[in-house]
């Protein structure tokens, strides 16, 4: 089926995507709370990767490499992973409103983190991110169990997810109301709305493999996802092992979301909206939609993080506020323009 021209255009599209991603990463490293000359970024990267030996201010180099480059990479991975999760869930559940939130994964992560931060569960052993990860997996397990008990219709897991989200959100509120004081409440709010300021290189070594494996597994199932768009029965009739694919994809989605949420907090909007934006740009075929969403999610998240760092001088705004405040109106504009075109 694939002729010479499409494969060529696929190569150039891939190259273009790579360039866009690199530019976004470079901007992510160059723009920050404090002013560091743009050229320092390239020199820092050259120093660190190829021992280029540029004489740079040690503090500038340290900030660029240890804080900003690692932060931009993790932001990109988070954006990709959340967007991919959104694409997969929207396809599998045949619901345009599905995203990691609907499975209660983010709510569970929040509860886990809050339990560690406020109640001191596992004090000393469990850190906030570990608490979030455990909470996310617990919530996902519970929601899946509930969905299985309720039957296998694709509506079941959405309803189970709504119930799970409500339950875990209530638990979070309960813990915060009962035990938190002003300082804790603020720390938790920051965490619930997402924050990338704590990101360092060790996070990169988790985020990159998780996002890469997620992308590969999803791409591997691109054809199956296309088939699922017409319902699981149609997919089965096309010879797709429905239950296995379902399990693998839901599992990989849960893993990606839990890992990312545990690292940077729960960031809304990306998983829900980026897939829709991507569909408008690259169409509905998953072979393109998946990498397209991953790229757009990555670029969007890096941009949102830049905005979060510079919008209030000397202070950082939670990135979840930026994704929603900037992203939602942007999405509304795209949506209404698309309407007028049609």
């Amino acid at each position: 089926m694939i002729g010479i021209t499409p494969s060529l255009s696929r190569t150039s599209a891939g190259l273009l995507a790579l360039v866009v991603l690199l530019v976004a990463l470079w901007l992510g490293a160059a723009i920050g709370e404090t002013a560091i000359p743009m050229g320092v970024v390239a020199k820092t990267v050259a120093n660190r990767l190829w021992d280029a030996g540029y004489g740079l201010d040690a503090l500038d180099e340290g900030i660029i490499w240890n804080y900003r480059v690692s932060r931009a990479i993790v932001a990109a991975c988070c954006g990709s992973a959340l967007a991919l999760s959104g694409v997969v869930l929207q396809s599998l559940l045949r619901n345009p409103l599905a995203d990691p939130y609907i499975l209660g994964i983010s709510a569970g992560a929040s509860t886990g983190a809050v339990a560690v931060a406020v109640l001191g569960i596992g004090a000393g052993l469990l850190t906030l991110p570990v608490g979030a990860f455990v909470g996310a997996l617990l919530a996902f397990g519970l929601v899946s169990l509930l969905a299985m008990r309720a039957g296998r219709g694709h509506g079941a897991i959405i309803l189970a997810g709504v119930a799970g989200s409500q339950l875990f959100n209530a638990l979070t509120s309960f813990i915060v109301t009962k035990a938190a004081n002003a300082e804790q409440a603020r720390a938790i709010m920051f965490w619930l709305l997402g924050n990338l300021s704590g990101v360092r290189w060790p996070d990169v070594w988790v985020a990159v493999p998780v996002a890469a494996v997620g992308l590969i597994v999803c791409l591997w199932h691109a054809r199956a996802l296309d088939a699922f768009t017409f319902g699981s029965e149609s997919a089965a009739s096309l010879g797709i092992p429905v239950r296995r694919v379902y399990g693998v994809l839901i599992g990989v989605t849960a893993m990606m979301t839990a890992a990312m949420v545990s690292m940077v907090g729960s960031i809304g909007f990306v998983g829900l909206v980026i897939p829709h934006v991507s569909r408008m740009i690259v169409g509905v075929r998953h072979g393109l939609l998946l990498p397209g969403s991953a790229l757009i999610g990555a670029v969007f998240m890096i941009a949102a993080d830049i905005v979060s760092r510079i919008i209030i001088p000397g202070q950082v705004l939670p990135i979840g506020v930026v994704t929603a405040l900037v992203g939602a109106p942007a999405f509304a504009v795209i949506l209404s323009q698309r309407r007028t075109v049609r």
Partner: protein
Amino acid sequence: MKSIFAKSHRGIACAAAVLLAAIGVEAQAAETSYPLTLTNCGHQVIFQKAPDRAVSIGQSSTEILYLLGLQDRMVGTAVWIGPVINGYEEANAKVERLADNDPSFESVVARKPDLVTAQFQWHVGPEGIVARPEQFEELGVPVYTSPADCVGKDNSGGGDGVRHTVFTMDLIYQEITELVQIFNVQERGEKLVAELKAREEAAKKKIASADGRLSAVFWFSSAELDIDPYVAGKNGAPGYIMRSLGIRNVVDSEEEWPTVGWETIAKSGPTLVVAGKMERRRFPADDIAVKHKFLESDPVTSLMPAVKEGHVVEMDAQAMNPTIRTIEGIEVLADAVEKSGLNK
């Protein structure tokens, strides 16, 4: 001659009148006449008599009452950040602790207090989590809130509030003066204020030679270790400590404890890092040892001159809040600067 004489007589008479008036004022200040009406945090508070059963919510409020020798008239305390001020362990042991953190409204009322003192409005205030002052007043219990938490400070946004007017020890002295009026123990208050002022002056003199050359950042804690830390804004107690010693705060925010990125802090290159020492273990960075380890091992903070040259000063967190302990903060920082030779 006569006229000159007459003039000087008039002068003496005037002086005598002023002196008498002063003694009169003094005499009035020495005795409180009840009912006493005070304006406190925008509220009129009326006291029919000197309180016998006070509950204090907030460690600083409690410690001021101890320093005034009023422990016998206290029936409860709450909200403790660290150990009680030195020398008052025994007094403190006799006063019932309703809660280490926030007490419930009913637990306070159950002590049948005739005065509730509050250090923070987020405990007792318009949005207070223990109660609003009106709730106590409905039961006939007057509420006195530390002026340090409401004068020139906006607590409506939740969190630690925003301080538009610079905190000074005068607010603590005001609290002492008003409490001695309420309890009718004026002579103790005058002595305490004089002592505190003398300590402040002595500390300032110690490092007067460093005036204007040093800068600092006050690190209270962090929600997570790597994440943006809570550091002192310019108008709170640390702002006062720094200003009184002629040290510049590298953080320029009106918020009481804003979160500021390490990148911004490192680039601003403070001469000193003042790290909060506290007993609570809510966040990993509450531990002073963890703070030291982070500063020395983080690839960016370890490059800061203050860290490389070992100018990380430990300070009790209570001294970093607008409390009676703020004075200790001034002493600790002055001592540290003198010891390190940075004032030379």
